[in-house]
C-alpha cells in the first residue's frame, strides 16, 4: 500500500516509521524515540500537556477540525467519575484510508497518544473503537497493547508514576454512522449506532455516562511528536490555526494514488499534479472532492487553493477527513452524485425523519436521473430537498448527504440537463450502475 519511497514534498512526522523494518514492533518504536513523549508527559502537569496541545494548533483529523487541546480542556478533571479515552478508528468516510496505515505501520503511536491524553485528563481506561472490517488491524493492535503492557507502559502504576491505564480494542460490525462520536459511544455500550443529543458533549458525559476524550486515530498519533518537540514546532509546520501535517489519501483518476503526509495548507493542484503524478492518461481534471464524499465537490477551476480547514471552507467545501477524490473529464457527475447519495441513504440510521426520508429521496431521484428518466423539475427538486435537510437533522449525517447533493446540481447543472428527455448518459456507452 506504500510507495517504496515517500514523495520529496512529503514531511514525515506521523509516517516517519512507516518504511522501517518491523515498523509495528515495540523494538522499532523504542529505537525511534517511542514512548519518550509519554515519559516526558509524566513529568509535566496535566494542564501543561493540554496547553502544549493547544499551542500546536492540532485540529481533529476525523473531519470536524475542532481544536484538540480545547476539546481536552472541557473534561472536568475534578469529576469523581472514571474518565475514558476513546479512539475513533471507525474510518468509514468514502475516500479515506489513512488511519488504516497508521494502525498497520505504527500502532504504538496511537497507544502513546492515548496514554498522553489519559495523563492529561486523569483517565483510567481507553478503547480503540475499530470498524469490524479492519479485523487484521485488531490483531496488530492487540499485539501492540500486549507489548506495551509487558514493557510497563500499560497496567498498574505505570513506570512507577502511580498512573493506572488500560487500552482495549473494541470492534464495530458494519455501520458508517458509528463514526459519528455519540453513535460510536452507543455502539461501544452495546446498542444500535443511533446518535445522542448534544449537549451534553462526550467531554462531560461520554462513554458509560462518564467524561470522555474522543478523537480520531490520526489526532492521537500527532500527540507524541507535539509533546516531544513542542506544540510550536508542530504548529509551524502548517498554516495559521491549522497546525502540523496531515495524511491525505489521494484516490481516483491520478497516476499515483496513495496516502501522503503533507503540511497543512499544501496546494491542492500541486497535490494532484505533482505528488500524485497527475491525471491518468493525460486527461483533464474535471472535479475534486477535497475531504471525503460528504464534502461539496469543487470544479477544476476552484482547486488552486491551500488545503487547510479554513481555506477549503472559504472555497465552499470542507477539508473533512483528508480524502481527496480526483475525477477526470470522462467522469459523469450525475453518476458520481447518485453513487454518493446511494451510500448515505444506505447508512442513514433512520432515527430522524429529514435524514431517513431525505437521503432516500435524493438517492432515488439521482438514480432515476442517471437512468435517463430524469425530469427537468427534478434538478431543482434535488436542491430543494437538500436545502430542507441542511441543519435540520439530528446528527451530521443528514448534512453529509445534503451538502454534496446540492453542490453537484449547483456546479454541474449542465450535466444534469444533458441527461434529460431520455438521452443516454453522455459519458458512458452501456451500463448504468447507480
Amino acid at each position, binding site marked *: 500500500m506504500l510507495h517504496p519511497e515517500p514523495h520529496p514534498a512529503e514531511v514525515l512526522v506521523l509516517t516517519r516509521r512507516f518504511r522501517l523494518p518491523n515498523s509495528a514492533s515495540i523494538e522499532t518504536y523504542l529505537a525511534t524515540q517511542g514512548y519518550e513523549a509519554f515519559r516526558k508527559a509524566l513529568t509535566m502537569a496535566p494542564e501543561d500537556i493540554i496547553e502544549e496541545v493547544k499551542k500546536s494548533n492540532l485540529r481533529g483529523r476525523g473531519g470536524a477540525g475542532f481544536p484538540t487541546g480545547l476539546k481536552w480542556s472541557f473534561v472536568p478533571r475534578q469529576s469523581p467519575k472514571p474518565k475514558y479515552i476513546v479512539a475513533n478508528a471507525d474510518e468509514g468516510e468514502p475516500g479515506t484510508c489513512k488511519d488504516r496505515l497508521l494502525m498497520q505501520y505504527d500502532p504504538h503511536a496511537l497507544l502513546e497518544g492515548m496514554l498522553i491524553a489519559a495523563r492529561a485528563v486523569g483517565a483510567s481506561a481507553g478503547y480503540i473503537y475499530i470498524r469490524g472490517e479492519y479485523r487484521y488491524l485488531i490483531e496488530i493492535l492487540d499485539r501492540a497493547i500486549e507489548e506495551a503492557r509487558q514493557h510497563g507502559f500499560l497496567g498498574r502504576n505505570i513506570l512507577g508514576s502511580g498512573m493506572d491505564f488500560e487500552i482495549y480494542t473494541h470492534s464495530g460490525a458494519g455501520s458508517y454512522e458509528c463514526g459519528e462520536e455519540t453513535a460510536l459511544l452507543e455502539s461501544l455500550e452495546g*446498542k444500535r449506532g443511533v446518535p445522542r443529543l448534544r449537549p451534553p458533549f462526550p467531554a462531560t458525559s461520554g462513554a458509560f455516562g462518564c467524561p470522555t476524550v474522543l478523537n480520531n486515530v490520526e489526532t492521537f498519533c500527532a500527540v507524541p511528536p507535539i509533546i516531544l518537540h513542542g506544540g510550536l514546532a508542530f504548529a509551524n509546520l502548517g498554516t495559521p490555526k491549522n497546525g502540523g501535517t496531515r495524511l491525505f489519501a489521494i484516490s481516483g483518476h491520478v497516476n499515483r494514488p496513495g496516502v501522503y503526509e503533507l503540511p497543512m495548507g499544501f496546494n491542492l493542484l500541486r497535490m494532484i499534479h505533482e505528488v500524485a503524478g497527475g491525471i491518468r492518461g493525460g486527461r483533464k481534471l474535471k472535479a475534486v472532492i477535497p475531504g471525503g464524499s460528504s464534502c461539496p465537490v469543487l470544479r477544476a477551476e476552484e482547486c488552486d487553493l491551500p488545503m487547510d480547514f479554513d481555506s477549503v471552507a472559504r472555497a465552499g467545501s470542507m477539508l473533512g477527513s483528508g480524502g481527496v477524490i480526483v475525477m477526470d473529464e470522462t467522469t459523469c457527475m450525475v453518476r*458520481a452524485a447518485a453513487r454518493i447519495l446511494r451510500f448515505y441513504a444506505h447508512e442513514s440510521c433512520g432515527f430522524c425523519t429529514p435524514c431517513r426520508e431525505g437521503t432516500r429521496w435524493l438517492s432515488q431521484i439521482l438514480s432515476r436521473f442517471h437512468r435517463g428518466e430524469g425530469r427537468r423539475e427534478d434538478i431543482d427538486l434535488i436542491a430543494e430537498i437538500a436545502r430542507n435537510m441542511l441543519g435540520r437533522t439530528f446528527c451530521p449525517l443528514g448534512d453529509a448527504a445534503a451538502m454534496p447533493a446540492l453542490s453537484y446540481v449547483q456546479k454541474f447543472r449542465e450535466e444534469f440537463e444533458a441527461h434529460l428527455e431520455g438521452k443516454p448518459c453522455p459519458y458512458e456507452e452501456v451500463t448504468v450502475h447507480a
Partner: protein
Amino acid sequence: MKFSDETEARLQRLMASCPPGNKRSALVPMLLFIQDEVGAITPEVIQEVCSRLEVSPLEVEEVVSYYSMLRRKPAGRYHLQICTNISCMLAGGAELFEHACRKLGIGHQGVTEDGLFSLEEVECIGACCWGPALQVNYNYYHNMTPEAFDRLIEQLRRNHSGRSEP
C-alpha cells in the same frame, strides 16, 4: 454453546474489557466474533449471548438488525465483498462487481449452490487509494481487475479442494 479455545479466549478478553456493571458493552463485538465461528447469528447464538451478557433477546435483535456485517444466514466459505463506492467506482468497481456476478452466476448477497462463494456489493472498506478493492472474508485484495478476480477465484477453488485456509 461451546466455542473453539481461540474464540472463547477472545470472548473472555472482551468481557474483561467492559467496565464493572456494563457487561452489555461487549455485545457488538461478541456477536461478530461468534458469527465468525458459527457462520451466522442463529437463535442459539442469541440465547447464548443473552445469558452471557444478561440482556434480553429484544436488545440483541435490535443490534443484529442494525449492523450490516451481522447476518442471519451463513455466507459462503469465501465471502467476496466488492466495494463500488465512489473511489472504487472511479477505478472500475461497479464493472468488477458485474463481472463477479456473471462469473459466479449469483447476485448481491447470493451464495453459490456448492456454498463455496457468496457475493456482496459493499460500501467503502477503507481501500480507496488501491481500488477497485474487495475483501475475501477479512482479507483485502487491492487494485483488482476482472482477470485478477478470475485468478483469485481459481486459487480459492484450489485452496478449498486442498483443504487449506484462504
